[in-house]
């Protein structure tokens, strides 16, 4: 590939552990969740429920750690949305990537996500995440609705509906995300970075894309 590349350390150990365990849990939750939804049969309903619930609580625990880590390290700033260069990113994915044009975004330790990533991950964390957690929470504690006095305001049908909506959104995200990992400096540079922490990037700031 192009010789003018360099490597920078982007993802710290915690981030990598967080990412991969979260990835495994989400895929597992999708598998068990769609079985509970009746889309297919694999583990059997009871086992699927046990696995799904266990994985969900594990993911909750992981998120508690992740939130704590992001707040204490200031890494939460990585997700502050920006529209800067979003157009350049979109253009890159639509054209530049096919012509081997330089990547419009150069990751650094302080800006590890490109603007589209920022938006996408923020959407996952602020839209899909809460939707899935809140509906999942009510789903799990269905038996306690009456004790909480909430059985008049909630219906399992709609709780399940929005839980499923969020699951489909997560599935769509997963597919797009998996593919876009190949859209870095080289097809494997993003994946390598997520494993080793070191990301291969262009040596120089990319030229502004031609208008």
């Amino acid at each position, binding site marked *: 590939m192009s010789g003018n590349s360099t490597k920078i350390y982007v993802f710290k150990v915690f981030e990598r552990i967080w990412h991969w365990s979260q990835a495994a849990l989400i895929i597992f939750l999708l598998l068990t969740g769609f079985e509970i939804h*009746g889309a297919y*049969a694999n583990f059997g309903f009871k086992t699927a429920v046990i696995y799904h619930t266990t994985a969900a609580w594990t993911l909750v625990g992981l998120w508690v750690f992740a939130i704590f880590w992001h707040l204490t390290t200031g890494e939460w700033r990585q997700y502050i949305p920006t529209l800067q260069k979003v157009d350049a990113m979109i253009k890159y994915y639509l054209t530049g990537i096919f*012509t081997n044009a330089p990547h419009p975004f150069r990751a650094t330790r302080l800006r590890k996500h490109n603007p589209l990533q920022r938006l996408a991950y923020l959407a996952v964390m602020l839209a899909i995440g809460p939707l899935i957690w809140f509906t999942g929470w009510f789903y799990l504690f269905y*038996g306690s609705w009456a004790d909480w006095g909430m059985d008049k305001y909630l219906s399992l049908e709609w709780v399940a509906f929005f839980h499923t909506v969020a699951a489909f959104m997560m599935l769509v995200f997963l597919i797009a995300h998996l593919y876009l990992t190949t859209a870095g400096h080289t097809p494997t540079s993003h994946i390598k970075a997520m494993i080793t922490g070191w990301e291969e990037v262009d040596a120089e700031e990319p030229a502004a894309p031609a208008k």
Partner: protein
Amino acid sequence: MREKHTRGALLGLLAGALALTVHLSWSANDPAPAPAAAPAKAAEGGKAAPQPGSVQLRAARTTADHSKFKELQQDFKSGPEVTKACLSCHTEAAKQVHKTKHWTWEFLNPDNGQKLGKKHVINNFCTAVPSNYAFCTACHVGYGWKDANYDFKSETNVDCLVCHDTTGDYKKLPGLAGHPAYKQMEFPPKSGRQVPAVDLQEVAQKVGATSRATCGACHFLGGGGDAVKHGDLDTSLKNPKRYLDVHMDANGLNFSCGTCHATKGHNIPGSRYTPTGKDDGGTHMRGKVDESNPATCQSCHGGKPHKGKQNGMITDKLNEHTEKIACQTCHIPQYARGNKPTKMSWDWSTAGKLKDGKPFTVKDSAGHESYATIKGNFTYESDVVPDYMWLNGKVKYTLLGDPVNPNGVTEINHYYGSAEDGKSRIWPVKIFRGKQPYDLETKSLLVPHTAAEYGVKDDAAFWQNFKWDAALKAGAEAAGQPFGGKFDFVKTEMTWPITHMVAPKEDALTCTQCHSRSGRLQKVEGIYMPGRDGKPWLDWIGWLAALGTLAGVIFHGGLRIYLANRKAG
């Protein structure tokens, strides 16, 4: 296994020696109806297992040996004579029986004022009692009810023995108006088979507590034969194994009917006329006055019956299910599980065909009557998966004079219930389908006069002459209904809640049997069930979005690879 049996037999002998007066039938193979077998005989069975304390206690509880009572040492000529002797000590017994449905065959439903009970209800089996008294009252706890003018005040007409017999020899024969055979007689009439005279003295001296066999003498044979009517009650429950009924298991808990239908003053609780759809009352406690139904599962097991060994998450989830699901729904996976097929349908409209001028029967491949001139066509099924419905305990019957639905199906009884009323649970039921006569003018069900008194020639009785006109006319007269002479047959359905034949927990339904697209509760409405329900349009949109994304990235990636290759090439 062999070692287990030997040890069991030894324990059995030991227990027998200790409890000298205990009369128990421990052999599951013993064909005799549940009752008395001397301890030595119990060991012969070779299958005696260690008995739970409750079983020994119950058998050892009695303090009276009725064979020692002078009152019973006489040559009884009839049932009422025995009753007279019983009442000389049990002074209040007949008065108590007089107040029960078992005696009056009448029940006023407090919910809607309907007059129910065998005297009034028309079902879609043998249909109705009026005009057929002498036959039907073989299952009346009394003697001599052969027409509408029966003396319900008579104390000596109460039949003590039918419920308290322990010999299995006391049998009331249809046609004798509630009497057993006092002398040897041919039964059924013209069958060539002989029924011996009952030894009343012997039976009277061996009376005891009611048993599965005594209750079953009627309730196992309802609808005209073994297993016909209920589906969850048949003679396989006389000595059931554990898999058939975990409570009545003859080698285990060995419950009698009365263990759950805990009776005070002869008034037996637990009735299909006013069933308990949802019991939130918790367990019954000694010393605490509790008039709620003692025959519900909850009256012993409480509202959160599932306990720990398995995954705690699942235990909690199962206990939440009790809010909406009757215990029976999961714990009675099928009914008619004892190798006795139950009748599922009965078409009276084909009855009366003759072959060479004579009545005949046709048997199905399993050897069961699929046609009989006297009754019409039947179907049977074993190990039947129940239907399921919301049930809150309210019932309405289609009674004499109530309109039927000639173009559709008429419900003999309608069970109310819904997901919303907070009083219902989802229950398993047997739905029995029939086709039976109704009056084309009044649009009311009709009462056919089918059976005559034993030995009486009766031209109007359908089972003697196979003439509907005469049978329906006589039936209507006895029932006090107008009948213009025009009739047809209407489709009917009768619903029977399933509550017996409770399987061991390992045989309960698995989650997937309901939580799937085409599971058992497929037709039950008003509730969201994960795995069964959802919004198909959401699934369409969701999967299309996922597939669209997949197609997009495949296209995008393919283009990248293609262009890279072209460049390289």
